[in-house]
């Protein structure tokens, strides 16, 4: 099971109270995890990635295992600890605005 941490405003939007744990078939990439996340929680479609371009939204960052993965290819493999469910993929809203 892949673990995902979401910012509070997206947890509220999707009605998520506990941890997010996802089954991801095949290679564990950013794209595969986000596809699984949006399939499980359709309210999140368009809030992390632009729906038209599938690109990460400008003020959303992706972290895991102490690394910033925001600028990695969406098809690159996530760290083994994320694929093993030991560490979460952390989705963060940039510190901006008010």
């Amino acid at each position: 099971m892949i673990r995902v941490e979401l910012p509070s405003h997206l947890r509220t939007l999707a009605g998520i109270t506990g941890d997010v744990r996802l089954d991801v078939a095949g290679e564990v990439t950013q794209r595969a995890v986000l596809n699984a996340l949006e399939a499980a929680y359709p309210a999140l479609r368009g809030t992390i990635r632009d729906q038209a371009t599938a690109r990460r939204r400008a003020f959303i960052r992706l972290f895991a295992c102490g690394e910033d993965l925001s600028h990695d290819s969406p098809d690159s493999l996530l760290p083994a600890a994320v694929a093993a469910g030991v560490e979460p993929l952390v989705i963060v809203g940039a510190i901006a605005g008010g």
Partner: protein
Amino acid sequence: MSKVRVLVGTRKGAFVLTSDGKREKWDVSGPHFAGWEVFHVKGSPADPDRIYASQSSGWSGQVMQRSNDGGQTWEVIGNKFDYSGVPGTHQWYDGTPHPWEFKRVWHLEPSLTDPDVVYAGVEDAALFQSSDGGKSWSELSGLREHGSGPRWQPGAGGMCLHTILLDPVNAGRMYIAISAAGAFRSDDAGRTWKPINKGLRSEFLPDKDADVGHCVHRIAMHRSRPEVLFMQKHWDVMRSDDAGESWREVSGNLPTDFGFPIDVHAHEPETIYVVPIKSDSEHFPPEGKLRVYRSRTGGNEWEALTNGLPRQDCYVNVLRDAMAVDSLDSCGIYFGTTGGQVYGSADAGDTWAPIVRDLPAVLSVEVQTLA
């Protein structure tokens, strides 16, 4: 007894204000969608319990919400707004070409007859329609593609389609307005469009009488007489008696003819309201006095309505979607400010009182009159 429900969109969520027909005591519920900008909330005339809301944020983009119980509970609906075809470019602020990019939904206009049909005006300017209660959206691309689109440019708030008026008498006729492109009319339910800006004059344009490029802030109509339109332009209050074919200025004795909202009394088609704002660089009331101005003559002759409104040290703004009227026998009128106050008048503007005074900055106000 009749009830009134006021739907308020703010910078940090939506609020639903309810009262009985006396409109003296108000119940405030919210914030709904706390922390998100809510540009607009509007109920269906065909089913008042069906309400649509536009929710957005700089982090997570556009989310759409729908309520089927008068705003008590909400469900997320479709938020995919894809322009038809290759959208091309419009003008940037400096006149250079800039690609069309979806940013947010400014205005929602539910059908007059079908609660599952709703129109959305978006930034960058385009008109979308849903026929399935907001699950999916498709562009009425005849507007953006009719020919003048490459000459449209953003106003200070972005290139937004902010006004949608549905003609209740002439089937298929609708009006929209874009800042800064102008007003447009369709006579075939949004398939084809034409600019209706003859008579508008804008000093910031190289051709001051151009067919497009005007910064229209708001248009209003009375449903009994839909060929008569009233407009608050960037500067100038305007009137058309021929469905927008021509416009004439009716600013008359207003202290300033800059402003954002304009609305019409529910029962008196010649009684209209504006909120004069000092200038396009000083977005607050002249002399620090918050005043609504009412004309009972369809323009030109205006009276200041001040009873119950701040008379000194008031420096708020009233945005284009932040004024609405109810349809009770004694017409109620409401407006919200960027200071978070929502003022109401149950006597057509003669006296005012705050319904609520400490909300986040108010972006929009709509009213439902309930049986």
